[in-house]
């Protein structure tokens, strides 16, 4: 084992998640509070893997209706048209603006899916106690966490359009049920990323050992 794999938990220490102060826990069961910032100390987040799995699965379930159901219903003088996300991508592509299509495809389809896959990958590797490419996995986690806040772009555009395009009776736009599921996917993946404890990545290889001693 390299030095990089030596974790604070192995040494019976706990680092504050807020101010990163390394301190000795009050007890193994109850690490107590940070001396510097007063944050609650935890060796590892409580039931992190279980929480993350639950949220990832919920997000994956919501991902299906988010793409299958229409996100926008456009009423134009008697004719109404419902569009799903993929439908919008296809429309943008066929109407010639492939860069926009690509943006929508990446932001609305690939990123949520990528986040789910990435989280699932992280969870599986952590559960299997893989010691491989811990650094890359940490980087992946950071990316997932970073991207999370930008994922609501679709929902944002959708709500904006609905609010602005209300030219009754000429034209009106209504949100479809898909947008709710899409928002749920985004929120759930953000929560999943939040509940995942990246420190677990570094615990691999020390599974058999007592976590503190």
């Amino acid at each position, binding site marked *: 084992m390299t030095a990089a794999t030596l974790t604070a938990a192995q040494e019976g220490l706990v680092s504050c998640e807020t101010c990163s102060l390394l301190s000795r826990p009050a007890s*193994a069961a109850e690490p107590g509070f940070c001396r510097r910032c007063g944050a609650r100390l935890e060796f590892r987040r409580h*039931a992190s893997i*279980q*929480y993350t799995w*639950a*949220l990832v*699965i*919920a*997000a994956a*379930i*919501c991902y*299906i*209706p988010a793409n299958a*159901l229409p996100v926008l219903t456009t009423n134009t*003088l*008697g*004719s109404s*048209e419902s569009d799903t996300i993929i*439908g919008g991508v296809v429309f943008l592509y066929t109407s010639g603006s492939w860069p926009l299509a690509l943006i929508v495809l990446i932001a609305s389809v690939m990123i949520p899916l990528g986040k789910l896959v990435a989280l699932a990958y992280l969870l599986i590797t952590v559960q299997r106690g893989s010691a491989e490419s811990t650094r890359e996995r940490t980087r992946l986690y950071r990316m997932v966490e970073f991207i999370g806040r930008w994922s609501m772009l679709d929902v944002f555009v959708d709500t904006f359009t609905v609010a602005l395009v209300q030219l009754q009776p000429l034209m009106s736009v209504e949100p479809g*049920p898909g947008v709710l*599921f899409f928002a*749920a996917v985004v929120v*759930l993946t953000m929560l999943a990323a939040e509940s995942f404890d990246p420190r677990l990545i570094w615990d691999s290889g020390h599974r058999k050992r007592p976590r503190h001693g």
Partner: protein
Amino acid sequence: MADNIDMANLPQAAVVPPKRTRISVVWIIPILAAVVAIGIAIQRVMTEGPTITIVFAAAEGIEAGKTFVKYKDVNIGQVTAVQLAENYTKVEVTAKIDKSAAGLMVEDAKFWVVEPRITLGGVSGLGTLLSGNYIGFEAGKSAEGQRRFTGLDVQPTITDQPGRKFVLKAHDLGSLGIGAPIYYRRLLVGQVTAHKLAADGKSVEIKVFVNAPYDKYVNPETRFWNASGLDVSLGADGLDVRTESLLALLAGGLAFDMPSFLPPDEPAAENTAFQLYPDRATAMKQPDAIARRYVLYFTESVRGLEVGAPVTLFGFPVGEVTEVGLTVDPATLVFGPRVNITFFLERVIEQLPSEEKAAAETMAEQSAEARLQVVRRAVEEEGLRAQLRSGNLLTGELYVAFEYFPKAPKPKIDWSRDPLELPVVPGGVADIESKLDNILTKIDNMPIDAIGTDLRKAFATLAETLKDAAQLVKRVDVDTVPELRTTLIELRRMMTTADRVLKDADATLLGKDAPAQQELRDALQEVTRAARSVRVLTDELERHPEALIRGKTEE
């Protein structure tokens, strides 16, 4: 770990191995998500209607995901795909029908593309100008479900209004279009819904729809006729102009009615086939059951005699010319015109008063032999002859007239031939022609030159006479007129004198203080006085008659 406090004696806390992580409440979230998603999926599947395929000849204005299927203006489905099919000759439209309308997708349901239609008969489908074309739907009556349909090329004009459909057979379509109006006594009561060529290609079948309640006026005996456009016919009967309405004039139309000679009947059944007559007159003609055919060999030109020209008996139309042609005598190779006619006995009987009809009808029902005898007697003894006459001097139309010509020479007729030849007399136009010819010949023979010379002489004499007259007038002017003037002056003087005399007389006799009047008045007073004295006397004498002898007594 170890501090300055001695901790060795402290008991080591029991290390309880961390409990196997229990199932966290967080799993409610994915369960909830799954329940909602499955719920939506189930709802989708439950409301999922059938997917049908409609084959159209062309998919004008049909777009996947944008075109709706509408029934009574309600969306019952949406087109999901449009693709070519059947060797690229047809268009296959796939549409998802709502679950609620799934029961309507039966065998005889109809689909058609609704697009804006502007015809003379009206404007329809204007809504599609904004919303785009849609697929119209008409429910069928069958119970048999179906998922593949063939779309109609044209919109059926009638959906499920109450009324009845009928089929008309016509020689040609005329100017009728789908939606062409149908009139009953000039009321708009229906329309043409479809037309197609009959299977043998020799006639046209026109489907019409007559709205309730007018459909009950369509009886098995009803006559339909083409009321399209302006019907102007200039025949031997004169000019006949007729139109049903301005709309029919522009867009074509049909009309129907019952012939007046037929009794009212039960309404006709749905899809009854009728003959479409070209015009009202033809339609209203009584069907002539017993047509007798005859042939006439005229001696004069039959130019102007057309097929269909009337055959009259004393001016009443009783038949028609059916054929006009030539004939040749094989022995002498002499050509002549041949006119075949039909003669309808019913039309003769129709013109008779009721009490005479019976006799005529029994005659009509006699055997052919007996009838031939009747005709023979009429021809040989009464002199029944056919004659060509001019029906219209302007157009030169001819017709065949039958009349009795007792003085006509007895004809030579082969009474066994069929059709029977009836004798003719030259007449009508030919007569006029020969007379004109005579007149012209006479004019031709006139001594125009001699007449001219005579005329000139006469004119010379006339000129002299006129000169004399002028002289006479001049003399009168010179001699007579002055005398006349003096005479007139005398006369005026005389008149003045007479006037004065009369005035005097007036003054003497009639003026207020005229002496004659004064005297007359005095005289009359005298007379009055005398009369009074006489009355006194007579009174006296009445009372004292003795006074006549003794004189007046002193009282």
